[in-house]
């Protein structure tokens, strides 16, 4: 007796005995169940912690709400934000922070090349460079805030060399300068390791051949090293740009609280301010959605740019 499974039987192409269909379908079903069970935890986590919050944020962005009461306002939150000059000022501040991207990549590149060439004590430096990554943003922020305080060590040095102390956190330019320094310091170690992994994939024989051909250090760097790790550099650049738009909150929160005025307020800090400090969750969510779309678009643009440069 055969049982219809609704699935076409496999052709007995090789003329052998067809496999027992019942056993096969049971096995397949079981395999499918196992596969589903295997991905279920990840699926549940992705749905619960990624899809649901994003969908909920989009839902909130069309409402005026304080988290409890919801009033549908359509695109009201978006238009309100887009007509608010503060948004453009804050966006401009975020653009200023982009200056950290080439700096951090340059420093990371130099460090990774030095590590790759195994300079004396490279193992120690590899650990040392990574240390900022195990420190929390709050700790790094407080450290830089203390260092650059009016009566802090940096100003003590300035005074020792005959200069006038600078109130770094009282002005937009100097405050942003300190935050960028903190960003570079905290980020270059991790980026160095990413670049180092790219460097490690280059065939050492290429370098040996270049040395035999008389290529110097700079020549090797420009003609062999950089072209071979360009994809990693692209990845690092994209990560840094994303970081600049989405992950400055901790530094800003600890070092300047977005001040003076709104001079160091970034998009992610503004989202927080709108959503929680001002009880305008709808506007905060609308801004979060706008930043999300902007970042997505920017990433695609970067990929396209680097791809065309590659070609």
């Amino acid at each position, binding site marked *: 007796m055969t049982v219809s499974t609704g699935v076409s039987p496999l052709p007995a192409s090789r003329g052998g005995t067809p496999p027992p269909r019942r056993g096969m379908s049971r096995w397949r079903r079981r395999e499918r169940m196992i596969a589903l069970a295997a991905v279920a935890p990840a699926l549940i986590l992705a749905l619960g912690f990624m899809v649901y919050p994003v969908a909920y944020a989009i839902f909130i962005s069309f409402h*005026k709400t*304080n*988290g*409890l*009461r919801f009033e549908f306002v359509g695109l009201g939150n978006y238009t*309100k934000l887009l007509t608010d000059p503060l948004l453009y000022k804050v966006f401009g501040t975020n653009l200023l922070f982009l200056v950290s991207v080439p700096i951090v990549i340059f420093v990371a590149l130099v460090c990774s090349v030095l590590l790759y060439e195994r300079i004396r004590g490279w193992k120690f430096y590899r650990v040392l460079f990574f240390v900022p990554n195990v420190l929390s943003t709050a700790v790094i922020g407080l450290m830089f805030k203390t260092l650059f*305080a*009016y*009566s802090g060590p940096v100003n003590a040095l300035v005074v020792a060399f005959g200069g006038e*102390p600078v*109130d*770094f*956190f*009282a*002005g937009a330019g100097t405050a942003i300068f300190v935050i960028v320094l903190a960003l570079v310091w905290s980020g270059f170690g991790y980026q160095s390791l990413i670049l180092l992994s790219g460097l490690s994939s280059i065939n050492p024989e290429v370098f040996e051949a270049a040395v035999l051909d008389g290529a110097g250090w700079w020549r090797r760097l420009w003609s062999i090293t950089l072209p071979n790790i360009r994809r990693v550099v692209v990845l690092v650049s994209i990560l840094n740009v994303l970081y600049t738009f989405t992950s400055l909150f901790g530094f800003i929160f600890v070092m300047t*609280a*977005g*001040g*003076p*005025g*709104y*001079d160091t307020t970034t998009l992610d800090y503004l989202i*927080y*301010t709108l959503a*929680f*400090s*001002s*009880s*305008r*969750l709808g506007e905060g969510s609308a801004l979060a959605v706008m930043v999300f779309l902007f970042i997505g678009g920017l990433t695609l643009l970067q990929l396209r740019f680097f791809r065309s440069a590659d070609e």
Partner: protein
Amino acid sequence: MKLSRIGAIVAVGALAVGLGACSSDPGTEGDTTLTVWDPGLLTKKTDDGAVADNSFLNIAVDQFEKDNPGVTVDLVTLSGDISKDAAQFQAASIAGNGPDVRIGYTGGNTVDYADFLEDLDGVFSDETMSDLSGWNTVRAGYAEDGALLGLPYGGGSYFYVFYNKKLAADAGLDLSTPPKTWEDLISLGQQAKGKIGDAVPFWTPNQEGYVGAWVMAALVGGQLGPTAFTDMYSGKIPLTDPAMVAAYEAYAKPYELGLTNPDAGSIGNSEQLTGFVQGKGLFMVSGAWENGALEEAMGEDAGVFPIPTLAGSAYPTALAGGPNVSVSITNYSENKDLAKKFLQYLAEPATIDQYVELFQTEPSNSASADTSVITNYYLKSEAEYVSSTDAVVYPFDNVMPQSVIDLFYRVNATVYTGQTTPEDAVSQLQDAYKAEMAG
């Protein structure tokens, strides 16, 4: 196979029993935990973070736990940063995992969170309601029939100028009679400049803009009277009123004239008292909440007088400040009855007397208070000013919606250092107010 299945079932069962044993069941055990959040208004810590001996709420909680066996009060101290603590409370309330009892500031800091707070009408006896003052500062919309959102605690903190007597003597200033106007005060600062060593005439840590909030309350209140900011809240007076501009201009003068610490814009409020006690400044604008710590650190070596008003003010002896502390119950609390019992205990005149005695920052708001518990040198002096004032001005940042208050603090800091003009500041405030009111 069978054995492994049985083993797995046994393991899961054991785990479930273990977890069950770990969890507490208040219903069956009779133990209840009441969570209280305090931003440092009713608690005190020592420099090394330990609970201070005179931390009122810790003592009150110990007593409450003794009186109510099986009850544990989990006292959580927040950062003390008004905006951050408000944000934290809102986020926790949306998630439904905030405290049972929230201690905050009266006015906007309580009223704005009405959606998360229990209406306390009926919680207190008629006797208590008539015995205590300040209820209007914690009612929704500040209306007499608005929902009662908190228990006002204490007779109110007012804003003052404290001065270092030794530095005043060094500068040759006689402050036995306080300056009558803000202009006189600045003139005193100018006289002191250069005669007080490394100290500055006005010690001003103003990164958060709080000093601005206190000075503005006095300067605007002096011009417009006790309803200055409630009238702005209700829209009777615009926030761009010339009185606001004039007040901002005068408030920024000390920095403009080089009479303050140069880093006024980047030093936070936490350094206010420390710096003053260390002798970094002749004058310090702050409030009565400094009384206890100031007496502890300086004894009677400092003096105090109200923030003077602008020359020509309609209310020349206006005093800014008012009820400051509000104790509320969250509407999502699972221990509302116990929380109400806790508030009733706090509202007892004897408990408030204990608060006054321990903190010495403000008098009691109970009509049947024991005034003999006031021993603080500064609080005694302040009591005289409170009794002789011609107007008590409830400040801007106790009245306005939280978003406008946040902006107010920001522009206060930047107006002071000249980064924002007074006209621009009031215009921004008016826009924020309009946006908030338009919903």
